[in-house]
């Protein structure tokens, strides 16, 4: 019992230290809903407005957070078939040159290939190419309810001007863990 308590204290301290060293301002694991999205973006907006960050960077961080969080609340899969919660992890870190928004969520293995193709397509395009793809996708989305997959990811790539960094970790035969890092330059 005593040992367990000590472990938790040690964990809390290590977490605090890691967060400080890496300038991580937010860590969350749990269900991602519109309420959570609103809370986190409002919190981040408030912190940014107190900083000397340019308006443009503040807006980009806010926009990218909204898209990342809404991607989870719309598209995340559960660990099993009867698990309907849209859960994920969310981290925001501030470095000397960049802000990073890191999100992770469960995805069914059968959807990995499609998502990977979308991500690779987005990463292969320049600013003009992204704009063209966005216009094409939004037109298709407007015509059908189903279309427009990946609009959020295209928007993140457009607004950050950085490649989307991602990883899939297979957890078992059914699902993988998808990690996406969006990088916003501070200058």
């Amino acid at each position, binding site marked *: 019992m005593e040992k367990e308590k000590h472990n938790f204290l040690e964990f809390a301290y290590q977490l605090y230290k890691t967060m400080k060293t890496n300038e991580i301002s937010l860590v969350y694991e749990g269900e991602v809903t*519109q309420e959570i*999205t*609103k809370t986190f*973006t*409002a919190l981040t907006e408030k912190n940014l407005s107190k900083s000397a960050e340019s*308006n*443009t960077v503040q*807006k*980009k961080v*806010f*926009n990218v957070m*909204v*898209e990342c969080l*809404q991607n989870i*609340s*719309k598209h995340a899969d559960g660990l099993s078939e009867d698990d309907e919660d849209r859960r994920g992890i969310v981290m925001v870190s501030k470095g000397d040159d960049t802000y990073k928004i890191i999100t992770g969520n469960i995805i069914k293995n059968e959807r990995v290939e499609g998502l990977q193709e979308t991500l690779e397509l987005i990463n292969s395009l320049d600013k003009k190419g992204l*704009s063209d793809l*966005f*216009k094409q996708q*939004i*037109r298709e*989305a*407007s015509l059908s309810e189903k279309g*427009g997959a990946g*609009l*959020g990811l*295209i*928007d993140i790539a*457009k*607004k950050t001007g950085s490649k989307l960094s991602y990883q899939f970790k297979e957890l078992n035969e059914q699902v993988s863990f998808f990690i996406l890092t969006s990088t916003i330059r501070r200058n």
Partner: protein
Amino acid sequence: MEVINIKGTDDTPNVILDKDSGQFEISGRSLPEDVNQFYEQILDWIDEYAKDPNDRTEFNFKLEYFNTASSKIILDILLKFEEIVEDGKEVVIKWHYEEDEEDMLEAGEEYSDIVEIPFDYLPYVDED
């Protein structure tokens, strides 16, 4: 026609649609997850308006933030006004963007590439 006047929230915009006074405006933030629920009455209103539109419509977009789900709905709105243009009426989109906000200006330019409606781009300076 009835007037739509919706006050904005943290994640939904101010909306004014008033045929008689010629005020058409969507402003503020549009970040709802379920965009259809919020915009349904607005799209319905525009469908009704399109049956007997004013000779000239100036539609103001003055958005601070909007998510990609909203960007699809904004296109839906613009496409409805494009039909009004095709019917021989005049429509102008007044696209307001905060000075130096390239992303918001570019968003307007992308829409104007898609729809056949003239756009005016109007930079503004944030008050605070």
